[in-house]
């Protein structure tokens, strides 16, 4: 067990190093002249030279890599070309909004996707199975950004029941004291017992959450179905059934218990997908999170900002997978 943990941790560190290496290659090797990119198109040759020295680009490549890693370890992701603010600071400010959106939509997606996959596997080839499979294939095929626009059109323009974007209504931002305790709007309004704000926030949350979670629902339902079907064809399930145990018992306490591994894989993967979807959705709904930051950075080709988000997200993803592997390793059947 311990040796597995140590090995897995070392592997995690190795992977992180790989991620840093890939991003380093992207930042320093792919652009023909990173210094020119840094100072912009209208700079004089002297300015480019100065930038080259400032960025350490005149040093050998391994020294540059060393500096790059040193900066990252210090939490220094560089400065945004657009706002000239430290990127890490801007990301920190925007992190709660995105995390809130990702978590809530992932939880809802799991709450819908898991039962859907379960019912599907339980009643294989019934009409409900066909429906759920078609629904989940539809959910992974729909372009997230298009779904966002269409939902906005229907619920904001035509039905006029939901707001088009933002986290809170203008009238609340202007006339009410918006609580700021943790930075998470949902928690803040709950802690301070401000239900008017909570209600307003939830109304603003519905559409972005659907868009962020749609892909995940389909993914979760499909993966749950196939994992369960595999387990249900195992010998011990056949044995349990041949004893005449009630189907409920077979399904919930024999099959479901053994699907821990696949379920955790599903959770980590769905968080990854949900996070990526925020890039497409947040800017449409003016959600003040990291996704909108990225979309804005892409529009004006703010390279350091794009890279900052890439590194942070990749590190978080590696960590998430590490945690998932460690949880799965507690399963006594897993060979370490």
């Amino acid at each position, binding site marked *: 067990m311990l040796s597995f943990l140590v090995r897995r941790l070392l592997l995690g560190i190795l992977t992180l190093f790989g991620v840093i290496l890939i991003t380093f290659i992207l930042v320093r090797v792919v652009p023909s002249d990173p210094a020119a990119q840094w100072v912009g198109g209208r700079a004089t040759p002297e300015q480019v030279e100065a930038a080259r020295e400032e960025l350490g680009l005149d040093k050998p490549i391994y020294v540059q890599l060393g500096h790059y890693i040193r900066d990252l370890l210090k939490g220094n992701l560089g400065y945004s070309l657009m706002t000239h603010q430290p990127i890490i600071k801007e990301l920190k400010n925007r992190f709660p909004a995105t995390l809130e959106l990702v978590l809530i939509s992932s939880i809802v997606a799991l709450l819908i996707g898991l039962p859907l996959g379960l019912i599907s596997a339980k009643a294989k080839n019934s009409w409900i199975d066909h429906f759920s499979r078609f629904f989940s294939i539809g959910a992974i095929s729909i372009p997230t950004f298009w779904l966002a626009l269409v939902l906005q059109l229907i619920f904001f323009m035509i039905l006029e029941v939901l707001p088009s974007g933002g986290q809170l209504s203008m009238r609340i931002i202007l006339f009410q004291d918006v609580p700021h305790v943790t930075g998470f709007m949902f928690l803040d309004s709950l802690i301070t017992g401000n239900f008017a704000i909570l209600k307003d926030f939830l109304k603003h949350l519905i559409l972005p959450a659907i868009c962020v979670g749609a892909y995940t629902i389909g993914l979760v339902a499909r993966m749950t179905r196939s994992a369960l079907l595999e387990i249900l064809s195992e010998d011990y399930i056949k044995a349990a059934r041949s004893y005449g145990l009630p189907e409920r018992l077979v399904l919930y306490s024999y099959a479901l218990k053994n699907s821990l591994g696949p379920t955790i894989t599903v959770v980590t993967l769905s968080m990854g*997908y949900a996070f990526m979807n925020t890039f497409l959705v947040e800017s449409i709904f003016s959600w003040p999170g990291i996704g909108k930051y990225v979309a804005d950075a892409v529009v004006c080709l703010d390279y350091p900002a794009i890279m900052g988000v890439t590194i942070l997200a*990749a590190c978080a993803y590696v960590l998430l997978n590490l945690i998932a592997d460690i949880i799965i390793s507690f399963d006594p059947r897993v060979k370490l």
Partner: protein
Amino acid sequence: MSKKSIYFNILMKRKLETLKEYLYLLKQNKLTFFALIIILSLVIIAIIAPIIAPFPSHIYGDVNPQDKLLAPSRVYFFGTDEAGRDLFSRVLYGTRISLLGSLIAVGIGLLIGVPLGLIAGFYGKFIDELIMRIVDMFLSFPPLLLAMAIAAFLGPSLQNAILALIISWWPWYTRLIRGQVVSIKEREFVRAAHAIGTPSWQIMFKHILPNCISPVIVQASMDLGGIILTLAALSFLGLGAQAPTPEWGLIVNTSRTYFLKAWWYGVFPGMAIFITVLCFNLLGDGLREVLDPKTKKY
């Protein structure tokens, strides 16, 4: 007839039989067959798009300010955009860009990923460790993120977006094939091939590869859809095709400014993405059922 050509005939006949069997099974599954028909029609549309488009000159450039943002009508089936261009013609032509882009990305991804997976699984040890650790590095980025970063640094264009997709996609095939090879290489027919002195590359490509290709075919079919979706997403973010290319994702992106007063502008190209991706996913799902001996049913 020589002995060799008789063998060849028997072999071809058997292959034809299997193909017929698969086609029969595919036909049994109505939804999959339907998806296949739509995909074939999309391929035909992609090929003849400039001929059947009612306004071929509207596909690229060409501006008719007097017809801007017109609602769908008998003249303009999908309406017009802010430059007065016929959206129907542009969406039709977009089929070519999306299908071709995704075919290139998946094709090259397979060409890189499959041999590497074969080598890693077949030789094992150090070379396996090396290839798979590199694969792990690429796969440790959340989906889309790496493609986005690469596309941004290469400079936004359709070609670079496709290149970015190739770079971030091949490791999936390597991992998939490698897992298959590891489980197949200890089987008796492989040992027998070793025993009679068959060269390694021949064992890999002639004996092992055909036995582990079905999951790859399923994956590739789903990926054709997945890459169309991702390519559209990159274009939507501004990292893929650039104006005036009639790429679906890009059209949806430009439609955002006018969306609330001209719903048709974004709805139709988005629908095209949705239907195309849906069909590839349905096909992949159906192929999985047919190719997997566990779920195959007559």
